[in-house]
């Protein structure tokens, strides 16, 4: 009643010897297969290192290459020797040279003794496997793979493509249902001998020797023929990254590995001194005797895979610079852009900050400088207010600002006098909330003291720019939440649109707005627009303003804030 280890060793022989010795002195027989690529001198010293242990044997060597039959041949041979030489072995545990036992051997023995007929082998049908990398799942079984993936990648890929196009199919031997799973298993003597002594073994071997990565399918498939007592999981803790490469464990994973309660882990970095010293010591008191629970450390590794494949949305940095449309979010969080509001309301910035509790900036893309909230000269992330620096890369300015202030919503003003280079970026960004009062830029002109011919020229320029900007906002590619009102429409009932915008921002107080921003007086604005028209310019973005503003004549500037019940 015991467990024996079949061990496949390729590199870092010293560490493999340490682990083999650990098992052997704890009365578990070990049969080691050493890759034939290991040169003779190293092999000799390796065997000499373990020469004093009667229950360590070495088997016939094959030259191993990842993804090929040689690995199955090696495990077969090692298992055969193990079963023949050590009749007391009940479970055969397949391990590699970079495996490390995490729990005392006695616990493993007890665990297996309590489950004498159970085969621990991950074995899943190809349809149900989510983790095959590169799209080869059922194709592993029905294509041929004469070319080496490592050395002749092009030929390998080309031949796979060719077979796909030709609709090529090999016949799977009768009675076999292809199953896949981790190549590190622990099988009972009964099942393993049934596989190895099957009269049809030659047939199966011939078939599997042409299958891609047969070490993940040979035993996994054949076990299904001979045993119904299968626990479809591996006792070896092994994590894979997005390319199907095993994650490596280092000294700083010590606590994580302890908490996993798994029996064996791979792959261990050969220089992980603390792990080898810690887990190969005989001190078993730290362990809880719990059921293996690799899920505890899954999180860490699945996060790593996600970081590598999806990354952090809205982050642009030295090792993440997505092509257009692959950003997975142009910016990292939601923000609001207000156009025409400061022109219409005297105290809009302060008011907005007060009711929404967000960070409100002025015209960040203003021609003079970036108007940060409170007109600071430097802002989060040490961004400065230089317009030159901002205009050198306007998009980076925006994405940096939003990234630097994660957790705090940003609002800023925008208008036709500002740098327009970000128009497309914000329009395509689902994180942007853009509210526009079109034509509001005319209000400061109305109040300005400039010559009317200059005003007229400026009005024409701003109108042209804003028209283009609104066209962008209304394009089919726009993903931002865009609202556009004409000035005339907006002032009819300013509270309703404001309420909508504020609600969407999700300010803390969900109740109705009780305080409105102070609107500038528009007395005579209609006449001003008429004057522009008389000068041959057609101001249309403001909507319909009656020349005679008689219904608004009674209002005075500055107006009192009014309450809405």
């Amino acid at each position, binding site marked *: 009643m015991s467990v024996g280890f079949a061990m496949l060793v390729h590199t870092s022989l010293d560490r493999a010897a340490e682990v083999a010795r650990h098992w052997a002195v704890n009365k578990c027989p070990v049969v080691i297969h050493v890759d034939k690529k290991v040169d003779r001198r190293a092999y000799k010293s390796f065997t000499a290192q373990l020469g004093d242990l009667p229950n360590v044997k070495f088997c016939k060597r094959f030259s191993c290459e990842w993804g090929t039959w040689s690995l199955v041949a090696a495990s077969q041979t090692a298992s055969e020797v193990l079963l023949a030489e050590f009749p007391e072995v009940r479970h055969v545990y397949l391990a590699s040279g970079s495996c490390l036992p995490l729990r005392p051997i006695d616990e493993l023995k007890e665990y297996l003794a309590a489950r004498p007929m159970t085969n621990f082998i991950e074995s899943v049908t190809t349809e149900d496997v989510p983790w095959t990398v590169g799209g080869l799942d059922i194709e592993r079984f029905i294509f041929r793979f004469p070319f080496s993936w490592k050395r002749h990648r092009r030929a390998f890929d080309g031949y796979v493509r060719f077979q796909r196009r030709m609709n090529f199919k090999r016949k799977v031997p009768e009675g076999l249902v292809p199953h896949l799973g981790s190549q590190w298993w622990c099988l009972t003597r009964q099942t393993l001998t049934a596989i190895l002594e099957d009269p049809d073994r030659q047939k199966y071997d011939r078939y599997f020797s042409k299958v891609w990565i047969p070490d993940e399918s040979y035993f996994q498939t054949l076990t299904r023929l001979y045993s119904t007592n299968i626990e479809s999981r591996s006792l070896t803790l092994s*994590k894979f*990254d*997005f*390319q199907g*490469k095993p*994650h*490596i464990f*280092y*000294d*700083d994973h010590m606590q994580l590995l302890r908490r996993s309660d798994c029996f064996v882990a791979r792959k261990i*970095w050969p*220089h992980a001194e603390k792990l080898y010293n810690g887990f190969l010591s005989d001190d078993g008191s730290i362990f809880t005797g719990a059921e293996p629970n690799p899920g505890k450390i899954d999180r*860490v*590794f699945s*996060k*790593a*895979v996600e*970081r*590598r*494949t*999806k*990354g*952090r949305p809205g*982050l*642009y*940095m*030295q*090792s*993440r*610079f*997505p*092509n257009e449309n*692959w*950003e*997975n979010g142009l910016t990292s969080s939601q923000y609001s852009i207000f156009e025409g509001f400061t022109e219409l309301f005297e105290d809009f910035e302060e008011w907005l900050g007060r009711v929404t509790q967000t960070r409100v900036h002025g015209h960040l893309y203003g021609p003079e400088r970036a108007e940060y909230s409170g007109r600071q000269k*430097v*802002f*989060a*992330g*040490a*961004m*400065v207010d*230089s317009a*030159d*620096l901002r205009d*050198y*890369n306007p998009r*980076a*300015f925006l994405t*940096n600002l939003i*990234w*630097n202030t994660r957790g705090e919503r940003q609002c800023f003003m925008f208008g036709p006098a500002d740098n327009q280079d970000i128009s497309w970026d914000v329009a395509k960004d689902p994180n942007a909330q853009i509210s526009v009062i079109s034509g509001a830029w005319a209000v400061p002109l109305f109040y300005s003291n400039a010559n009317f011919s200059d005003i007229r020229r400026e009005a024409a320029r701003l109108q042209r720019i804003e028209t283009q900007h609104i066209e962008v906002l209304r394009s089919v590619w726009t993903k931002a939440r865009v609202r556009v009102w004409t000035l005339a429409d907006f002032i009819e009932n300013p509270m309703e649109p404001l309420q909508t915008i504020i609600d969407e921002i999700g300010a803390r107080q969900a109740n109705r707005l009780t305080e409105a921003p102070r609107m500038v007086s528009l007395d005579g604005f209609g006449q001003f627009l008429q004057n522009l028209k008389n000068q041959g310019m057609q101001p249309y973005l403001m909507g319909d303003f009656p020349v005679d503003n008689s219904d608004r004549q009674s209002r005075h500037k500055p107006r009192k804030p009014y309450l809405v019940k």
Partner: protein
Amino acid sequence: MLRKRWRIRAFRKRREMKSVVNRTETIKPNDILVFCTARNERIRLPYFLRYYRNMGVNHFVFVENDSDDGTREYLAEQEDVSLWTSKAGYKRARFGVDWLNWLMRRYAHGHWCLTVDPDEFLVFPFCDTRGLRALTDWLDASSIKSFGAMLLDMYPKGPMSSQPYSAGQDPFEIASWFDAGNYMIEKNTKFGNLWIQGGPRARMFFPDNPARAPALNKIPLVKWQRSYTYVSSTHNLLPRGLNLVYDEWGGEKASGCLLHAKFLDTFAPKAAEELERRQHYAASHEYRAYAEKLDSDPDLWCKWSEKYINWRQLEILGLMSKGNWA
């Protein structure tokens, strides 16, 4: 064929160098090497060597350029240093790149090589618990040939001259601040690398002329092959595939940072001297901009500066990434 040109250039420039101590025969097959040019850096070297020795570097190859402060003598006595010296112009050797390209071609083939300046200190994911060997083993296992590390300018709080640096001291005890989020990135279509600018130098010295701000992208760690060549400092190299240290499909590749200990009290005299020699990049524009401001002994620190804690902080801020290394 650009690569051929740089390589021929390196070949021609090899005669400008004279070997002082050559211990390269002690380099073992898997050793990690550092390549470095130095000029009057005696004060920085003790900490530099200690830092990289602790990290797991096995051998240093230095080119010393016309020093007069004992740099040469100090380096020559170090057991793990091979030293060349040159009196020729730094600028004519394309800021030392030609010299290093030649030495790397001869001695670096098949090794992981870190090419840094004496004021650049590599920080990479898990560097507090794993050595450089763990990183290079992982890169090897992942079939990655080059590793990017952005230059992160570090500066003190208060005027640079107020806290003097002494030999052997950790420079980041003084220059412990950095800019967290004002970097701008563009793609260099010719070589395929990213071009990163920003940081304190852009905001202090080049706010009106950002295009002149120095490049911060660096690829210092490369599994070197004879046929490789650095093009412009360690900003980019050939063949172009090595410059692809960033992901273009939304993911993050693993990357590190080169903490740049340039802004210490040693900076002002150095800048003045360099301006005098006119041996720096782009007609020493950079140094001219420094000199103008340095007269007033500026403070690079601002209230949004971030104080350096460790690599995890840099990773959270998004300046570097663990990628899929866990």
